[in-house]
């Protein structure tokens, strides 16, 4: 009787290629032509290296990119039994204020395939404002007395794609002028140096991030906001996914996990936020948005003004 047949048997019998995958002579000729074309396609050393997605992640973990850590905003879902539409709108209402400094402390752990280098952990502290100022410091370890690896501060100005910034690097003890822009491509990451709420709203509206149920992080009630698996058009061998974990009770962000699977290797970048808070924007907190003093540091050809940076350029004499 048809109704009682096993579902998988019925499905197998419905295979549109149930006649087999054998090639006709014409199809075999087509295959041979494709093989010849492929073998004639030059393969560069760049092509043969690890996928770009993994290299990006390794660079991010190494701190080679000016700023690579992600931030996310908390979403208060404590008053609702389950996440749903409008979750991010509420988060935006909570955080997208003009007179606010977003401040967070992050521990970022990168696990990369062995041939990409070693696993590593980076600690950072960041501040940014709705008017475009930002500052991030990276350390080798957490807590007071930690060795500073890099210092990066600047400002976005309306109408400019590239923010102007100064970067100090511990290895060379030099201050350099840099640009900063953020483009995560198809992966729904957040620009760590911009208002997270507005970004989350945009990602939700675009369908790139969706609430995905309750969870728990270290005993705290949380919700997941996650992306679908994403494959970049130029890297179809890789699949990426981003998951944000959001504290349901306190609005505090808890964790972000970005994973990249190439089928033969997996890399993950896990960010844990030990502090995420909104500070009032005032004279004291404005000072947190400037590059730290680095007495004795060399200056490398920088002329950018205080107006553009949002703080005085220590390499430009008044």
């Amino acid at each position: 009787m048809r109704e009682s047949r096993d579902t998988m048997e019925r499905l197998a019998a419905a295979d549109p290629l149930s006649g087999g995958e054998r090639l006709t002579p014409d199809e075999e000729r087509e295959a041979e032509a494709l093989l010849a074309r492929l073998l004639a396609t030059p393969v560069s050393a760049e092509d043969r290296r690890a996928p770009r997605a993994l290299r990006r992640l390794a660079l991010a973990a190494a701190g080679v990119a000016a700023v690579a850590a992600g931030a996310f905003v908390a979403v208060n879902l404590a008053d609702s039994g389950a996440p749903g539409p409008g979750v991010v709108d509420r988060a935006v209402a909570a955080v997208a204020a003009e007179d606010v400094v977003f401040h967070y402390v992050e521990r970022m752990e990168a696990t990369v395939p062995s041939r990409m280098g070693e696993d590593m952990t980076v600690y950072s502290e960041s501040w940014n404002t709705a008017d475009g100022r930002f500052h991030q410091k990276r350390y080798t370890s957490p807590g007071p007395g930690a060795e500073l690896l890099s210092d990066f501060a600047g400002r976005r100005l309306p109408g400019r794609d590239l923010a102007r910034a100064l970067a100090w690097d511990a290895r060379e003890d030099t201050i350099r002028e840099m640009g900063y822009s953020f483009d995560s491509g198809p992966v729904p990451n957040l620009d760590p140096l911009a208002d997270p709420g507005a970004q989350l709203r945009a990602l939700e509206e675009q369908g790139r991030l969706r609430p995905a149920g309750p969870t728990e992080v270290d005993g705290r009630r949380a919700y997941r906001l996650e992306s679908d698996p994403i494959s970049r058009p130029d890297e179809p061998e890789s699949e990426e996914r981003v998951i944000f974990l959001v504290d349901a009770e306190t609005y505090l962000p808890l964790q972000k996990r970005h994973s990249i699977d190439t089928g033969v290797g997996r890399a993950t970048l896990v960010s844990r936020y030990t502090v995420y808070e909104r500070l009032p924007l005032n004279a004291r907190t404005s000072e947190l948005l400037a590059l730290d003093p680095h007495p004795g540091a060399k200056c490398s050809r920088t002329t950018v003004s205080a107006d553009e940076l949002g703080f005085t350029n220590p390499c430009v004499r008044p």
Partner: protein
Amino acid sequence: MKPTREKRFEGLFREHYAAVRGYALRRAPADQAQDAVAETFLVAWRRLDDVPDDPLPWLYGVARRVLANQRRSASRGAALERRLAAAETVSRSGDPGERAGEAEAVRAALGRLKERDREALMLVAWHGLSGERAARAAGCSRATFAVRLHRARARLAAELESPDAADRLSRPDGAMELN
């Protein structure tokens, strides 16, 4: 003696071309399928050092993403559903009468499932992969795939019985309509 890069790729291509082509043809019209096969093997050629010892699940995984990118870039999201529902082109079996009607009904039900469920079912039922290999092709762990397959099978069974039953399966336990 270690085979040259070209020889290794040629062996890979000859052994798996038909299977990858079959994978693509089950999911896309012939012209798109052929493009996807070419792109899949181009990735394999470039990344030959990364291709695992058991290459077929890896190739299926690449082909899946290539097809997904094709659909996204050309807004062809509904093409597969239409194709599965219509089931009018690639069949070589020429099922007559009731058998053809049954196959079309099953494919139409399959076409109404979510892509992830559909993929799990197709990898096992049409491509004959074991759970472990299918999991690699789907890009998830074996345990995750087992759960996904179990649920997909239940949803397909429900679709075959009644589309409403399938809707109920997609909701969490305890969920109910208020009106």
